[in-house]
Structure formats: structure tokens, C-alpha cells
């Protein structure tokens, strides 16, 4: 029996990626990284900034996400996100740009704890990508 399932990444504008032969997906869930395998229980997750790893027969892929929601049901994994970048074409300038944005946001005085946490996460992740 195959151990593969389908993953779909959706943008508001278009469907970003569809892959049928995925063996494992690691997502940066709000309360920690989480690996999802076939026949996982139905779940809805909220994402924090981080790296999505998609492991499949046709090659592994890594994506950087800033936010999003994940739904897993009947071996269909849907990731809804408005900001996602494939790490393969994620260059230095893009990274610096996002980092600058995040740092600006973090330095705002009226930021609340939760968004502060998220922005700090974002900065950490962005700094780790190299």
C-alpha cells in the first residue's frame, strides 16, 4: 500500500502547488513544528512563520510561509496562505526586504504580545535562511 497523500497549497489569487505523491509534510504549527503522514486524524492548524517541508518521491521542496491555515482531511492536506515563497527562488534581496519589514513591525510601540511573538518568529526564521 502506498504511503502517499495529496497536498495542495492555495493562495487567494491562485492555487500555488498541487502534489499527489507526498510522503510527509512538516508544517510550522502555532504550537510547534508538526509532521503529517498519511492517515493522520482530521486536523485544523494555525501556522506561525516558518518553513514548510514537503517530502515526496519527485523530490523534496521547502517553502517559507508567514501565516496560514492547514486543514487535513481524508488524506488531503490543504494549506491556505497569502504569503508563501519557494526557498529555491528565494534570494537574498527578497529575504532582506521581508526582514526589514518584520523588524520595522517589531519596533512599533503599540504591538501586542501575540503579534510580537509572531514577528519575532518571523525574524528568527528569516535570519536562519541562508
Amino acid at each position, binding site marked *: 500500500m502506498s504511503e502517499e497523500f495529496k497536498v*495542495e497549497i*492555495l*493562495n*487567494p*489569487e*491562485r*492555487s500555488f502547488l498541487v502534489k499527489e505523491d507526498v510522503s510527509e509534510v512538516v508544517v510550522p*504549527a*502555532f*504550537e510547534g513544528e*508538526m509532521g503529517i503522514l498519511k492517515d493522520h*486524524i*482530521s*486536523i*485544523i*492548524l*494555525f501556522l506561525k512563520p516558518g518553513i514548510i517541508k514537503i517530502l515526496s518521491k519527485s523530490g523534496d521542496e521547502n517553502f517559507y510561509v508567514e501565516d496560514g*491555515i492547514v*486543514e487535513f*482531511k481524508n488524506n488531503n492536506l*490543504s494549506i*491556505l496562505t*497569502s504569503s508563501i515563497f519557494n526557498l529555491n527562488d528565494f534570494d537574498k534581496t527578497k529575504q532582506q526586504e521581508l526582514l526589514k519589514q518584520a523588524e520595522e513591525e517589531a519596533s512599533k510601540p503599540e504591538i501586542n504580545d501575540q503579534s510580537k511573538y509572531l514577528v519575532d518568529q518571523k525574524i528568527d526564521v528569516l535570519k536562519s535562511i541562508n
Partner: protein
Amino acid sequence: MATLDDLKKRIASVKSTQKITKAMKMVAAAKLRRAQENAEKGRPYSEKMNNIILNLSNGISDKENAPKLLSGTGQEKVHLCIVLTSDRGLCGGFNTNIIKKAKAYFQKISNEGKTLKIITVGSKGYDQLKRAHKNDIVERISFKDSKTINYLDAEKVGKMIIENFEKEEFDVCTIFYNKFKNVITQIPQEQQIIPLKTSEVEENSSEDNYEFEPDEDEILSNLLPKNISTQIFKAMLENSASEQGSRMSAMDNATRNAGEMVDKLTIEYNRSRQAAITKELIEIISGAESL
């Protein structure tokens, strides 16, 4: 009666107008295809989003403490209306239909003695509403500069709405836009987005038992603001497809009318030319006879 020269000039001018409307029709047709594609591409996201929210809101045990975006503020005093129109004219009844729908709703609100606040998106809507509702318009937004409909624009509007909602500036929020049915028909829609109405889609939701991380309430309170932006984005996509469709059929009509006009003017031109020739002939003949 118009002289031959005048008629000639008129025919030429109608013909050049026809050329313009024809070109506009072609451009609209090309843009329509793209807008339709975009609308289709955006559909899975908003559908999925709707589904998740539905599942979540069904699973919420404590209705009392549900997020206000879902349950409302408990009163219905101030209504915020977002009127989405186009930035350009020459698209038939497109803007007028939205405005008509919106105005009927405004009337209803003010008859019930409630306060009205309007946000116009797109400059045509503002132009049409400013006379009657100048004092009700709290904000006007226009995306003239962005070439394509993008999510960032929708998010800007969404964030503004959320901010105002958190400041308790309004209780109910409704958006007005045209839903694209086909090239000839666009249906003006009013859709309430705050508090969210979930009843329409309820029947096709299956009873799924999900696990949640973090818990339902937290996801929901994060998700609902996103959903507002998504709904607005969806409305913007539908609207842009409708605009192009409407423009296409309007320009098609205009081209046809111009054609008819050219035919009519040509007949008139030929007749008066013939009349002039006949007149000259009569003059020559009667001149010859009198000799």
C-alpha cells in the same frame, strides 16, 4: 436640411466612433477572459476558507463568548456599507446597477432609523453617491494605480474594516458588488460579512470531527479577520469580471448602433446627392427649353 458636406462629416465621425467602440470591445473581451480566469483561480481558496470557518463555528460550544465578528455586537444600530464599483466608465449599467441596489438598502436603513456609514471602493461609486450621501461616506478608496486585482489591496480594505469594527464604529457590515453570471448578465449582490452569516452553506457541511491546534476559539478569532479580506477579494474578482463583461456587451451594442447610424446617414447622403443632381438636370433642361 443638412448640406452634403455636413452629412459627409457626420458619417466620418460616426465611423471613427465605431472604430473606437469596436476596439474597446476587443480589449474588454481579452480582459474579461483574464478576469474570469483569475476569478476561477481564486475560488478554491475562498471555498476552503468558508468550509473551515463553518466547521469551526459549528464546533464552538460557548456561543456566548464567540468572537464578535461571528456573533455580532448584539445590536444593529450602525450599518457600514462597502460599495464596490469600477474606476472607469463606459461599461453600461454596471455601476448604476450596484448603486441602485445599494441605494435601496440605504433607504431601508434610514427608514428604520439606523445610522448609515458608507465606504466606496472605486471612483465611479463615489461620483454617483456623493450627491445624495455626501455626509454618510466615511472613506473612499480607489485602486486606480494597481493594474491587476491583488490580494494586498483587498487586505488593506479588510484591515480597515476590522480596525473600525474593533473601535465599535459599526455593528453590521454589508458589501455590494456585481456577481458575474455571464457576459450579458451581472447580478448586483448584497452580502453581509459582519456578523458572518453561515446559514446559507450549512446544508452541505458534513459533520467532521477535527482536532484543533490551538483550540477552536483561538483559530476562529484569527481566521475571521482573514475571511473578511477573502470575501472582499472574492467580491473584487467577481466585480472585475462583471465590469469587463458589462463593458464588452455595452461596446458591442454601441458598435452596432453606430453601424445602423452610418447606414441611415449614408442613405440620407445618397438621397440628397441624387436630389441635387436631379435639381441641376431640371435647371439645365428648363434653361435649354426656354431658349
